[in-house]
């Protein structure tokens, strides 16, 4: 290593310790006072949230609680009326475009699986691969050995090796959900935002998904939005309950389930 490298490193650290970014303190995502309103209706209401690095966090809450909207805000799809959102080492998410946020390392799986139906499973992964997104480089792009190995290992992880040449529109619903997760992994993201991964899955598929997400935490930070309580409990991690655009309770599953306010809004759980 050249002597110059550490100097650059320390300069980077110095700028990161910029006063306004102190709030991060090891968190990878930090939201403060986020408000989003649609025609006067507050989908998010002064929401505060911090996600620690390497964590597997479950976000639950009744329909319309603002879970998807929160993900929209983090990924730049929705611009909030007010609030602060920091990522990683103090990057201000609101100053970035959607593609910039994606490239910075926040990957998202949508509530409705949306794979590219007319491309094959392997091609879907190829497009999601972390690589130059420019027009010209894609015109002449060829997968390197390393890249196709990575793709094959992701195929293995999501259990779709046998289906690699199939049209993505022709695989089962559960397989599409995994393909989406695989597409996230191809981007080598720091954070995976996963919206309702097990909706419509069989019991077995659900178990398989829980294993998959658990195995991903640590190397990645994983944020899961889910209604399926059994699934959330099987992940057995820190749970945040959202209600009317605010955090109602936070803690482990047993803790939040015994919180009277949670019981009140989440009857029958």
């Amino acid at each position, binding site marked *: 290593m050249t002597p110059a490298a550490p100097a650059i490193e320390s300069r980077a650290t110095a700028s990161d310790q910029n006063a306004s970014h102190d709030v991060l303190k090891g968190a990878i995502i930090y939201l403060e006072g986020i408000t989003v309103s649609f025609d006067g209706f507050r989908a998010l209401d002064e929401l505060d949230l911090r996600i620690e690095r390497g964590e597997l966090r479950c976000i639950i809450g009744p329909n319309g609680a603002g879970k998807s909207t929160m993900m929209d805000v983090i990924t730049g799809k929705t611009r909030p009326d007010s609030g602060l959102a920091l990522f990683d080492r103090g990057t201000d998410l609101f100053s970035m475009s959607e593609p910039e946020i*994606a490239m910075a390392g926040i990957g998202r799986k949508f509530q409705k699986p949306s794979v590219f139906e007319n491309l094959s499973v392997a091609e879907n992964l190829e497009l999601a691969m972390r690589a130059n997104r420019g027009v010209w480089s894609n015109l002449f792009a060829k997968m390197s050995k390393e890249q196709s190995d990575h793709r094959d290992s992701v195929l293995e992880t999501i259990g779709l090796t046998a289906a690699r040449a199939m049209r993505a529109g022709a695989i089962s619903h559960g397989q599409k959900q995994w393909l989406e997760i695989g*597409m996230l992994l191809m981007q080598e993201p720091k954070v995976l935002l996963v919206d309702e991964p097990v909706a419509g899955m069989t019991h077995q598929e659900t178990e398989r998904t829980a294993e998959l997400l658990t195995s991903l935490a640590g190397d990645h930070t994983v944020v899961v939005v889910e209604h399926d309580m059994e699934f959330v409990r099987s992940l057995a991690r820190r749970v945040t309950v959202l209600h009317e655009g605010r955090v109602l309770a936070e803690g482990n599953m047993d803790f939040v389930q015994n919180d009277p306010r949670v019981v009140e809004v989440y009857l029958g759980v």
Partner: protein
Amino acid sequence: MPRPSFISRLERPDRVVYGALIVIAGMAALLNLVVPEGSAFHMSTFTVTLLGKYACFAMLALSVDLVWGYCGILTLGHGAFFALGGYAMGMHLMRQIGERGVYGNPELPDFMVFLDWQELPWYWWGFSSFPFAMAMVLVVPGLLAFVFGWFAFRSRVNGVYLSIITQAMTYALLLAFFRNEMGFGGNNGLTDFKDLLGFSLQTDGMRVVLLVTSLLALGGAYAICRAVTRSRFGRVVVAIRDAENRSRFLGYRVEHFKVWAFVLSALIAGVAGALYVPQVGIINPGEFAPLNSIELVVWVAIGGRGTLYGAMAGALLVNFSKTYFTGALPDAWLFVLGGLFILGTLFLPRGVVGVFTKEKE
């Protein structure tokens, strides 16, 4: 509709396309130039020119398929790029006339003399040079497509709104080119061409050369479109077509891909127009007519979109029928076209070529 991943396995259409182009070129040269006129096997020069026109139309259909079939941009204004390429070529051919015009003015084309113009407008400068004119055949449609695409795609104009503004674009050009003050010959357009690169446009030999050049250009355009649609760029473009927002979240700048696909397509359309004009001998504002551009989409729909060869087949099929019906039953043509479109959409959702290719799941 066939999918690109499926096409990538098919080498056969390529062989059919290139084979057909070579056969047509060889037959035309042989049957028109070598076989004597009295023989039953003689191909008339009229047919040669007709084939040349079809080759230009097939190229135009290819350009529409590239943006519509692969990129999902339903353009209803592609005739504009064709016409602009045609005008660039027409301007060169006008300059080639020199003092052989009716008024014998060495400096000005006839229509300018007629309008009492004193000097050549600046935008006609340089068109006497063949290389300059050929550059303009690419630059003008390409630039328009770039500027139009840049504004439309960056502001995320999609679907039917985009179709409408492409119609508006070609309609605006139609109105502009109609005006005498514009300096493009107004209503009458540009015509009475004499020669190209010193060769008279009227000889059989030149007609065959123009046909062969058009076939070469068609083959080249097909090869380029094939390469582009089979590259990762092509897969990104299909991804954008099917799930635009998803592509954006993957980090692709959707508008850049759309703009460049649009520009490439306009370049192909421009070249097609430039080859068309010396063969038909005229270019006028009628080529900008919105209806023309709509017809292009019908060719592609009937042939089968998203396959390239389907678009070419559609252009040939519709134009053969058009030639036949406008001769046999002139009043019926529009009904036939409408009928073809409706029947095609109802019974052949993947177009005529879809009948010959199996769907893969």
